[in-house]
């Protein structure tokens, strides 16, 4: 490794938020919550566990409430500056795919990567999470008016198998993956739904 490899360290680290400093964030499987007798309580606990994924920078960066996306583990405003655009896909002349391809691309002049996936876009405004409590995210995620018309089963499918969701665990060099695995996230979602999809307070 040469000094060139240092380049991205500064970029991608900077002043890290608490979340990213705790590199040992892990998530537990549904069975870990079997000891909670009350279904609703257990369900809320399961969602809280799911929340470790939902509130990771890998998810929050592209679930903004206002303006454009953030980037990096420290969730800085996206640079170059980009806007949401009518289709959650950037501005005419500089849409997301101007830089983001179908896969992550390792940089050639420095360490790090440009993230990519097909498709690649912002979550709709109705699905913005930044600044919301976990309970608010939970209510929103269940609400077909705001979650893109998804039933709970479709939500499970999304969390367990959607490719862009899965990107969170394969974010490319220089980004901390979302905690756990998509499989585990799917199992938690399944268990949360099966216990009544209750929301934490």
């Amino acid at each position: 490794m040469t000094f060139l490899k240092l380049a991205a360290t500064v970029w991608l680290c900077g002043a890290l938020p608490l979340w990213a400093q705790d590199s040992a964030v892990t998530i537990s499987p549904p069975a870990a919550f079997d000891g909670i007798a009350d279904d609703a309580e257990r369900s809320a606990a399961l969602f809280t566990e799911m929340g470790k994924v939902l509130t990771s920078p890998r998810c929050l960066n592209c679930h903004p409430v206002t303006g454009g996306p953030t980037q990096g583990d420290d969730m800085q405003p996206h640079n170059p500056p980009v806007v949401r655009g009518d289709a959650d896909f950037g501005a005419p002349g500089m849409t997301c795919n101007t830089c983001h391809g179908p896969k992550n691309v390792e940089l050639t002049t420095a360490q790090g990567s440009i993230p990519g996936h097909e498709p690649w876009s912002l979550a709709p405004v109705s699905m913005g999470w930044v600044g919301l409590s976990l309970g608010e995210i939970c209510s929103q995620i269940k609400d077909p008016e705001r979650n893109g018309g998804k039933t709970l089963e479709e939500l499970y499918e999304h969390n367990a198998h959607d490719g862009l969701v899965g990107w969170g665990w394969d974010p490319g060099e220089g980004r901390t993956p979302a905690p756990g695995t998509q499989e585990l996230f799917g199992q938690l979602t399944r268990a949360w739904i099966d216990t009544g999809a209750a929301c934490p307070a």
Partner: protein
Amino acid sequence: MGILTTRRGFLAGGTGLVLALTLPVGRGRAQMTVTGPFAPNAFVRIGTDDLVTVTIKHIEMGQGPYTGLATLVAEELDADWAQMRAEAAPADDTLYANLAFGAQGTGGSTAIANSFMQMRKAGAAARAMLVAAAAQEWDVPASEITVKAGVIAHSGSGRSSGFGALANAAATQPVPEDPPVKAQADFALIGTDRPKLDTVSKSNGTAQFTMDVYRDGMLTVLVAHPPKFGATLAGVDDSAALAVKGVRMVRPIPSGVAVYATNTYAALKGRDALVLDWDDSAAETRGTEDMFAAFAEAAAQGGQTVEEEGDLAPLDAAATVLSAEYRFPYLAHAPMEPLDAVIETRGGKAEMWFGSQFPSFDRLAVAEALGIAPPDVSINVLLAGGSFGRRAQGSAHLAVEAAEVAKAAGRDGTFKLVWTREDDLRGGYYRPMTVHRLRAGLDADGKIVGWENVVANQSILAGTPMEGMLQGGPDNTSFEGSTGLPYRFAARRIGWAAMESPVSVLWWRSVGHTHTAYAVETFLDEVLEAAGQDPVQGRLDLLAAESTRERAVIEEAARMAGWQGRRRDGKGYGIAYAKSFGSYVAQVAEVEDRSGIPHVTRVWCAIDCGIAVNPNVIRAQMEGGIGYGLGTALHSRITLAPGGGIEQSNFHDYRMLRINEMPAVEVSIIASDQDPTGVGEPGVPPIAPAMANAWRALTGQKQYQLPFLGGAMA
């Protein structure tokens, strides 16, 4: 004289081979007769296709000499602008010296200033020879012949001709020794707008820059430089690099380790695969904070006095004493085309293609590095994708690195040296980091009784091959702009403390004025406010009666802005003035508060740069200078981590101004009959203090450290 110094040659023209006429003019001619080679000081070539090609001795890096110098020739030649062309001069000190330097080079915003009479004489001589040829052919008195917009005419006989048809005949005419030039009142082109000669090729992708040079068998070379300034190579494991497909060899050179490959991608991958061990024992291991502390301590000691007037004692006893310490970071120039150079070695000779800004230095240094004679090094000066001072290297370090690359290859060949953006930002040659300490005293009436400004930074020239220019004195580029102020303070003292570091420094667009204008003009703004004075009127009141040009630009900028004081309608207004490179500039900035971030919405700029050769280029340089200075003040800093090593690497953390941050700019050029002065740099110094003054007016916040936004994402 004419026979000796007129060269005839066949040149490819629009319709085939044409006979050209080449004219010697100016200072170089005398030198030429001394040095001997039959290569006259050639600036003008006229083909039988009517095209007039001007050989431009200054590098075109966006600042406009192709257009500006061609304008000067066209003016005296009475050519039509549409027939004018420009091409770069090769490295040749004898013929193409900057008359301000005595050597070939571009810098200090001198391109027009030093060429103003030389290029006009070149055009006037060509015109006289064309007229003489026409007079001979038509058998009419030369005095009755007129030339206008490329047409030579004799009204009495009804004869007329373009230049091309008379080019051959003109080539046989004697060259006038000292042809007369026009009075300013007779200028037809100077002072008017016309299309730039390099715009079309820069709008369709055909403009040729260094990186666009491809030659048979050429290898692309990247060099791994030390991660810390002053570190030296202790060990290399190149086995993985050599295993990369396309990598041909790896060689240690004085500046690092060179990787030679058949294409850029392979060179990048090969360099990345090097395992390198560096010796840091002589390296700069201080972090930026430690260095600032040392610089501030030195400034507090007062430094050596570089300018002094009056008795400063009343300052300490003044009714009101203001003081401030300013901190300015290292800055990279970051031209859009990273540094690059192509070198070809053939049987003991070398030919180069690159954006050489100081061909004189580059040529000598390359010859020395290769152990050959300077005449065996030829340099083709290409368009440069920006420079802002970065390519103006007294050390010739880029050309030397290219030479070392060629030498280390151990065989003749063609090598394209390419720096990446990371190499550029971490490669040193920065605007010096600087600390200013300022103090000012006001008496009970608000009169400034004393002004003290101490500057601490590294000298740009000391320790370089240009050190001789200092003649043992202090380096004026370190504090220029703190000295020579037009403001009449009752007493003043300017001090300078010379700092040292292995981090290399260089002139950066407007050089010392990059920080002195900020420190002086923001501190003065505070002082004027403490004295209960308006920023515009307060400045005007400090000017001597003879400071008419200073007064004119300040008044004009204020007039354009409709100046009504520091604030109005929720916006802040600030003014700043700076004279640099002979030109007087004042700017007013209008600033909004956007979520705690200053956003400059409009800038009004007044400049007096003497006779305005091409107002279009001058406006462009003011617009660009404002954007360059603004982006830097908002975003840019190069910092060293504790232990040494540059923290920034690319445009994500060394940010440039982007279009969404660019204000509307209105430029007013003061009419003048004085000789032209610089425009490439003088637009930069006033914008940062103008913005800071507006921001303080709006928010009360004082910004003593640049950049405003901390340099990272904001």
